[in-house]
């Protein structure tokens, strides 16, 4: 019996719509514990495929027959094998096309809203890894912020809405994922902008992104105002777009704040982080809609799958913005930090242009969950 493949896009829709799904994850236990497909109404069973080589009898009674069942593995091969065995045993199951590899790379574009004079802003949700990137479009011109290495997705999307990418920005030198910024700039002829303080070691030419820079997209004014906001990295820069959206990079998230230890010593930058979150951001309008570069947990997704929240709401609810005592804040962001992302040093070197790993290596380097925040 042949089994159906389910695409990452189809799984993403089930996450966004809070649908039910039973996931039989056949990767080894440590990979599963490290990172899995999150969905509010998903149920899970982890049994490594190599425990099932002699048959699926042991798991079959643990698999519901009244729910959609998806078998998941690293790259697809083992999930096809197990799905076929379950299917032979009479169950109706699917496997995840491309496995966790494809899950890690799926980008789902979501429109966030309209901008001045027909402009639009889109969020690209990298659902499997928690990375968020942005496209700002106006009159056939597009700016891209914090693009991932899945560059074709952005190029095809821009093409589909008839826009040309002219500017590419990174809010900071990323340590958790490989930036697609430079590649997209090369492919489209766009300019690539980086905060110079994060770019002291890069091996390529870039446009310095400085505090106070105002960039206009399209022939009407959609301002992208750069705001120096160090703390996650020394160069971290936020953007205020159309006086409506605050793209906060890895400084401020919905339910957490940036960690200061991925590019140096946490102690060195904790003061900057506090200054940014407690002074610079306080001076901004509370009406701004915060658009971070990551989400950490699936609960941060809005009903349409997007990730955003009013700055005022975050000032009221985000624990990291509500720590009066400076020493307590210092402890929060320097002690008991989550493990550092996989291969984060190699990822930084790739983003600086110092090493050029091939596609497979880039995938390996990025495997796993995102860990850029502290709560």
């Amino acid at each position, binding site marked *: 019996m042949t089994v159906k493949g389910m695409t990452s896009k189809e799984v993403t829709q089930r996450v966004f719509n809070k649908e039910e799904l039973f996931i039989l994850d056949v990767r080894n236990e440590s990979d599963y514990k490290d990172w899995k497909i999150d969905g509010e109404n998903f149920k899970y069973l982890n049994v*490594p*495929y*190599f425990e099932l080589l002699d048959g699926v009898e042991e798991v079959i009674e643990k698999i519901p027959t009244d729910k959609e069942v998806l078998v998941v593995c*690293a790259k697809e*091969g083992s999930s096809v094998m197990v799905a076929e065995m379950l299917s032979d045993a009479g169950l109706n199951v699917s496997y995840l096309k491309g496995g966790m590899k494809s899950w890690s790379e799926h980008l789902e574009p979501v429109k966030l809203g309209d901008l001045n004079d027909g402009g639009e802003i889109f969020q690209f949700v990298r659902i499997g890894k928690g990375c968020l990137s942005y496209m700002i479009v106006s009159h056939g011109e597009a700016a891209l912020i914090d693009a991932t290495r899945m560059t074709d997705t952005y190029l095809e999307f821009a093409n589909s809405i008839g826009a040309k990418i002219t500017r590419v920005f990174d809010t900071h030198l990323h340590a958790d994922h490989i930036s697609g910024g430079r590649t997209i700039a090369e492919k489209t002829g766009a300019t690539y902008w980086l905060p110079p303080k994060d770019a002291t070691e890069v091996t390529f030419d870039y446009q310095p992104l400085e505090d106070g820079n105002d960039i206009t997209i399209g022939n009407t004014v959609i301002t992208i105002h750069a705001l120096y906001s160090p703390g996650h990295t020394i160069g971290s820069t936020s953007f205020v777009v159309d006086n409506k959206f605050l793209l906060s990079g890895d400084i401020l998230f919905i339910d957490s704040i940036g960690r200061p230890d991925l590019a140096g010593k946490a102690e060195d930058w904790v003061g900057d982080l506090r200054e940014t979150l407690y002074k610079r951001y306080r001076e901004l309008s509370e009406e701004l809609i915060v658009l971070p570069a990551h989400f950490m947990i699936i609960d941060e997704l809005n009903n349409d799958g997007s990730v955003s929240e009013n700055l005022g709401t975050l000032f009221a609810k985000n624990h990291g913005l509500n720590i009066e005592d400076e020493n307590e804040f210092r402890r929060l962001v320097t002690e008991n930090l989550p493990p550092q992302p996989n291969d984060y040093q190699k990822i930084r070197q790739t983003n600086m242009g110092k090493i050029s790993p091939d596609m497979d290596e880039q995938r390996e380097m990025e495997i796993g969950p995102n860990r850029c925040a502290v709560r």
Partner: protein
Amino acid sequence: MLNMKANMILDAKGLACPMPIVKTKKAMNNLEAGQVLEVQATDKGSKADLKAWSESTGYQYLGTLEEGDVLKHFLRKSSNDESIGKKHPNVISNEELEKNLEASENIVVIDVREAAEYAFNHIPNAISIPLGELENRVNELNKQDKIFVVCRTGNRSDFAAQKLTENGFTKVINVIPGMSQWTGKTTGINR
């Protein structure tokens, strides 16, 4: 290059998951207890999976060598002699041997596990003489020396100690239980 002396080499290069483990499983079935299998694979995920699979099946995962794009995994099919009573009377615990090693540098430790087991993890300065080679290499050892014999669980070393005694060695001590519980210093490739 170290000679790892696998009893069988399985070529799983170019195969994607789940095939490396499917093939390894079949190969292990054909192996005799105590023998070592070398699995050559290019699938990066095979390392963690083979390790976890070995643990769940009771095979010994010895380690992995990386040579370019090829991962060489070494697995041993444990022998089923674990329940056989040990006969050599003169024994020492891991902890006691560790104290001896700390106190003196001139201690002779013979590791009688397979070469691949030894290569990945052994007591510094231990001499590798796999049990199967002991008969022919007995003249490498000095009968006057106090000789500590170690293996993984104390059984192969028990055989080795008996064999040495038969050959006229009088100061032979079996280390119990051996490397499976060893918490002292070790060395080996990949570390």
